[in-house]
């Protein structure tokens, strides 16, 4: 695990496409995971939700592949496929037995390069996306998190909903979506990761051959990405949700972008220190000793332009103020007192082992390489444990001081209506 040598090969094809390959001879499975820098942040504001809707429409076929044919090609051979869209990316992945690669990879490339976005399918699939939005609005945690990010990112598109809104979606046309697709699904924005039981030469040839005929790039309205100014207050928001049994407390801070990876890693450590595991500070005190919360967790989410650090708790309404105040006072303590070597060692061990546990399968590895290559570079994926091990207690304290202010943050409270 200490070896920093990057175990995969990275190629840049003549057309600008990035290919990352790793041979794992012991497995008969191959994962092909295609990452596109065409997440919600490249949408202009008036096209909010387009990237995610397009992810749905990619599966609706091309002039050569009728809708549903791709799904049958993958699944009838025992494989699985799916896709996801976030702010920084959209990605599309298949897991398939090595002997079927010749059938499955060209089909995946055909969908991604030549999505037809037929009018009739567009109208029908919009109903599916509207169902997805409805289903999310029935989930209190989804709504609370969305509200928190909107409050933190008031200018940057990270604050916008990935799904968009019903009103917006009803305005879009297939032609707009086609131009969004032809503009962003271009080789220089795309990384094909192929990991598993396939040798380099075979994999590379197959990808080269399949990801060749990109459509001519077209213009489409571009996003205006504004840097988010720092939070210089406590931004409070109170929301009500019917049927809620327990209140939610969500607190959020803006972290660095990928240009300051070291700080980001420090925040990963701080997130573990505060609320990962029963011996972490906040779980131990607030759940185990005081019994004030049903659960409390912290999450650090690395994003290209600006990361997000959150602390979330599920609790009885009448403890809301007390718990928020306690969290702030524990942050004050973190800012003023050095972290002990033993505690820091615990956090490092936990993150390094989590990393080892999340690189067992080709699916996990492909995701890791694709994600880091999309927002930074793939080598970052394997130097992570080493970087974590280097941290000193004083650095952790400085990073906490830089980002986790108990005076400047956003807080969203969700209460029973």
């Amino acid at each position, binding site marked *: 695990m200490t070896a920093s040598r990057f175990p995969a090969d990275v190629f840049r094809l003549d057309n600008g496409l990035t290919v990352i390959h790793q041979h794992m001879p*012991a*497995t*008969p*499975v191959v994962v092909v995971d295609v990452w596109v820098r065409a997440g919600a942040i490249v949408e202009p504001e008036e096209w909010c939700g387009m990237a995610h809707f397009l992810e749905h429409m990619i*599966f609706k076929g091309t002039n050569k592949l009728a809708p*549903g044919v791709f*799904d*049958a090609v*993958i*699944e*009838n*051979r*025992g*494989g*699985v*496929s*799916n896709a996801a869209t976030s702010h920084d990316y959209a990605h599309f992945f298949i*897991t398939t*037995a090595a002997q079927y690669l010749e059938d499955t990879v060209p089909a995946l490339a055909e969908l991604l390069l030549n999505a037809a976005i037929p009018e009739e399918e567009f109208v*029908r*699939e*919009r*109903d*599916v*996306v*509207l*169902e*997805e939005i*409805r*289903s999310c*609005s*029935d*989930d*209190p945690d989804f709504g609370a998190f969305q509200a928190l990010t909107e409050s933190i990112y008031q200018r940057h598109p990270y604050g916008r909903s990935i799904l968009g809104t019903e009103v917006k979606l009803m305005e879009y046309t297939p032609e707009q979506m086609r131009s969004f697709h032809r503009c962003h699904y271009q080789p220089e924005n795309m990384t094909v990761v192929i990991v598993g039981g396939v040798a380099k030469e075979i994999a590379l040839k197959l990808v080269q051959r399949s990801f060749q005929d990109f459509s001519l790039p077209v213009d489409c309205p571009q996003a205006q990405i504004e840097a988010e100014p720092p939070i210089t207050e406590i931004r409070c928001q109170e929301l009500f949700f*019917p*049927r*809620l*049994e*327990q209140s939610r407390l969500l607190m959020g801070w803006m972290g660095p972008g990928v240009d300051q990876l070291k700080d980001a890693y420090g925040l990963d450590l701080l997130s573990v220190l505060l609320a990962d*595991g*029963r*011996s*972490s500070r906040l779980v*131990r005190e607030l*759940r*185990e000793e005081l*019994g004030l919360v*049903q659960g409390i967790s912290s999450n650090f989410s690395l994003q290209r332009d600006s990361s997000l650090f959150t602390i979330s708790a599920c609790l*009885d309404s009448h403890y809301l103020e007390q718990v928020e105040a306690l969290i702030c006072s524990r942050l004050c303590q973190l800012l003023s007192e050095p972290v002990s070597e033993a505690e820091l060692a*615990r956090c490092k*061990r*936990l*993150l*390094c*082992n989590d990393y*080892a*546990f999340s*690189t*067992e*399968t080709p699916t996990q590895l492909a995701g890791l390489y694709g994600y880091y290559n999309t927002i930074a570079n793939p080598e970052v994926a394997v130097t992570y444990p080493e970087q974590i091990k280097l941290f000193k207690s004083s650095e952790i304290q400085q990073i906490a001081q830089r980002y986790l202010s108990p005076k400047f943050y956003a807080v969203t409270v969700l209460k029973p209506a």
Partner: protein
Amino acid sequence: MIHRNILDNGILLLVVENPAADIIAARIFIRAGSRWEAREQAGLSHLLSAVITKGTEQLSSIEIAERVESVGASLSADAASDYFQLSLKTVSGDFVDILHLAGQLLLQPTFPETEVELERRLTLQDIRSQQEQPSTVAFEQLRQAMYGQHPYALSILGTEASVSSLGRADLQRYHQTYFRPDNIVISIAGRVTAAEALALVEKVFGDWQPPASPLPVLQLPPLTSQAGTNVTALPTQQSMVMLGYLASAVQSPDYAALKLLNTYLGNGLSSRLFVELREKRGLAYEVSAFYPTRLDASQFVVYMGTAPENTAQAYAGLHTEVERLCTTKLTADELQASKNKLLGQYALGKQTNSQLAQVFGWYETIGLGIEFDTQFQEKVTAVTPETAHEVACRYFIQRPYVSLVGPEAAVTPFPF
């Protein structure tokens, strides 16, 4: 290659040597779980899982957590309907220490009064919080209708009434009854040899002697319930529509065919329900089916979430597709595609050390043996369109149990 050993005290040990990564995962199964709970003590297994890691004769709750977390390992307990388990995962160098700790938790838990009280209170909150998700409300309602007095009727958490009555003495009694070496399967996978694993398990658990008394014989109430409709009106954006059919236990000869029919209907983007109700009609984002593997009668469920105004259509669509299995035989191609899908995904579910330890340990725990891994694949391969059709007729000809959750105006005019 799976190494299988039975220790002198009755512990069954399985080891899969897998040197690929510097990881060892283990699952320690106990033949207990909510299936063994009396109705008035529902939730006992879950409460035990919450408290068993929180105190031994030598260590306090926080000391146990520190031992595990300081080496970045994981060690947790879970209760399910057909089993209870302790799960561990470590880098290989830490495995010996963490298995010793697991041994201490299993053999000498003290169930400290304050921890019992804390976890009992949090479980009661968890039970109430479950009402926040419409899909959980719909499933709970369906399960209670289908299973009546059988323990499968209730969530693993238990009910507010039953959990309120549980105490430390109940945990001790349950532990004394079921936690005995002749009722345990230990399954290990990772960078360890079978000989090393055997020596280690002998060292940690070898002195543990089974009591002279036999294990109690489980008496389960027969399923007497009848299909009907249950409705909960909630002010939600979507209606949840669920249809359930009582289906066979894992030992039944119909099991493989039912798994295939479930795959055909509800598994993946090319499945029948997905294509007919989502792709062609845009009625849902989530539409699927499940048929869990169970020791007793299982349930075959199809469900979807849909806009309130489409509730009746959604019900009709789901019902038609299940009934169609009785009226229309699957073509050879359709059946073959479902077999490929089911067997392909089955193989994909055995990739990590945790998955390997889980699947083989579970098969031994529920009495199927590790041979079931190959038997299952053979049985699936052997299903013909004719047998699939016969099985469908046997289970899907009767009226389904129906569970509806959604805005009052959308769900109460049922039958639509």
